[in-house]
């Protein structure tokens, strides 16, 4: 696939369809890939990469890139196309300035999961029939391939691209919630007692170092100046003073992206403390599905979002009491 992408990129640069390409750039190791914009065929030949570790969603960069001179080629995985569409819908991306080439998705791998096994000194990673062979400074190590799969790919919601100008490879299908299991953990949390749930979240959120990586990577978080960064907002907060503030940052953020979060999984992927932030967002997605009918943010660019719309069938505020707190 990487080769087909490189050829496609060079062709579109050469024929003038685009003047830049956004993709991924090779790093020092096998896994440290950086999203990057390429302007020439030479740059692409030297550093362009698409492999097991190119998990980063480049859609958010297109907010800025699509406002520059000329058209940019973006390679988008199925999940990335939902973020892209949502940003087009919110008038953040200028659609006509992006040439979207859909590429197959993952599963991508998570270097942190390999390291969590105690495997260190990683020099190379190869998948051989379901076994990951890892070349390290301390000799070869192995682990089951599926145990190294990135969290967001384990519960992939769609192998179908919701937007593209051109497609490389086969188109896939939307994956049902039953098949993806993406709400299983949310259900587990719902079935806990309030105290158990509180304890679960306190344990997770108390690890937060408030680095803002989750917010800054999030394609649904594109405010020019976040309330938490703005001293004039009255709630600016660079570090959580106590557990209340620690919880609030995440809960407020989850509310703010509700109905717009496409479940791209970037927040949990980038968290240095492995906090399962996606579970907060998935709870909102699940509730929106239940209260307002099935809805997938980013699926299209025209429909009204359930939380921005009024319908006679909408749930009543009293639902809160009916459902109870326990």
């Amino acid at each position: 696939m990487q080769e087909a992408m490189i050829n496609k990129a060079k062709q579109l640069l050469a024929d003038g369809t685009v003047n830049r390409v956004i993709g991924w750039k090779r790093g020092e190791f096998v896994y440290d890939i950086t999203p990057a914009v390429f302007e020439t065929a030479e740059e692409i030949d030297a550093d362009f990469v698409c492999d097991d570790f190119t998990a980063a969603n480049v859609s958010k960069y297109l907010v800025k890139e699509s406002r520059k001179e000329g058209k940019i080629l973006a390679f988008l995985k199925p999940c990335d196309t939902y973020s892209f569409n949502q940003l087009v819908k919110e008038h953040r991306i200028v659609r006509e300035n992006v040439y979207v080439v859909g590429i197959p998705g993952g599963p991508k791998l998570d270097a942190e999961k390999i390291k969590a096994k105690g495997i260190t000194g990683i020099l190379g990673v190869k998948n051989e029939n379901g076994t990951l062979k890892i070349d390290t400074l301390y000799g070869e190590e192995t682990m089951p391939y599926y145990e190294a799969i990135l969290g967001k790919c384990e519960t992939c919601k769609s192998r179908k691209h919701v937007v593209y100008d051109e497609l490389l490879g086969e188109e896939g299908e939307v994956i049902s919630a039953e098949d993806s299991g993406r709400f299983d953990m949310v259900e587990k949390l719902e079935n806990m007692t309030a105290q158990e749930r509180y304890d679960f979240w306190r344990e997770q959120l108390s690890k937060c170092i408030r680095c803002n990586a989750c917010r800054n990577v999030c394609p649904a978080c594109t405010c020019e100046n976040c309330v938490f960064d703005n001293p004039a907002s009255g709630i600016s907060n660079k570090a959580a003073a106590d557990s209340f503030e620690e919880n609030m940052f995440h809960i407020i953020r989850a509310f703010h992206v509700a109905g717009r979060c496409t479940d791209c999984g970037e927040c949990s992927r980038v968290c240095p403390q492995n906090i399962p932030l996606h579970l907060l967002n998935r709870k909102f997605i699940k509730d929106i599905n239940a209260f307002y009918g099935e809805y997938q943010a980013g699926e299209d660019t025209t429909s009204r979002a359930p939380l921005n719309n009024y319908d006679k069938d909408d749930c009543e505020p009293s639902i809160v009491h009916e459902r109870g707190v326990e």
Partner: protein
Amino acid sequence: MLRISIDRADELFAAIAAQQTLYLPADREDGQAEYKKWEEGVKLSGRLNTVRSAKDFFFPQTENLAEFKMEGKKIEVIDVRRESEDFVIFGVRACDARSFGILDKVYLVDPVDTFYQTRREHGTVVTMACTRPAETCFCQTFGIDPTEPEGDVSCWSDGSFYYFKANTDKGQKLLNSLSSLLEDGDTATLDETKAKTKEILAKLPLAKLSTENFGCDKLNEYFSSAKWAELSESCLGCGTCTFVCPTCQCYDIRDFDTGHGIKRFRCWDSCMYSDFTKMAHGNPRLTQLERFRQRFMHKLVYFPANNNGEFGCVGCGRCLSKCPISMNIVKVMKALEEK
């Protein structure tokens, strides 16, 4: 050399904890390590290093500095400092141990930061030599030998014993207090372990990275380098690299209005943030390029310029593994050096 069998680690930790609060790296359920207060049942992590560095003990993410109470035109200033307790941090790696020296150069010079100073005085650092360096480690670039860590007490492991050597009075005092547990023993197997580690160190992918092309004489050349645009292009402007870094030292001071008075606190800040060093006229670094450049220029040029050539990085590799876009000081160094 003084040593104790690793099987007796719990006795050792209990003996330390009986005198002072003991913190050590412990495993978390997600496979990463973090410093925890030792109590019965807490096991020393086998991981190479913690996600958060050991700087937290001396320079915590948030701390209250003072409180103000207003009554009419009278303002009462309340000192909120509590008496610090003595504590021991066990298992600090050589890179983090060196970072304390770097922080000292910021906080212990005139005007001395007494909050920091108090904690430094009360803390005893017991280091732990590395035996399994990771691909992201490049402490050697900064002249750090991970097989000979600094600290008040240096500690080594050969898999069967922990070996100890005191480097300061504070460290000697700690070892003296543990004398009934420690015995003198020979270091043959430890020497083998060290030799093996040295072989690995020579093979690390970043073993050849050098600071030769960095320092104060590079100020103008690097500051105006055209490379920053590309390097900073996809930076998210988050604080991950800064907050996991053992040597990042910047903070913000804010006032929190409680409704009854003011709580003045300080918290870590990041030069990657849009409101970093914001002043009445606004922010001196308007774009992410300038903020990004600040972080690396500080470590590779400004800090050595002000501190006899000492760099502001210890090569711990945390920013290499934690940056969400995998952009980091090594990539910056390599790009700047390239003509």
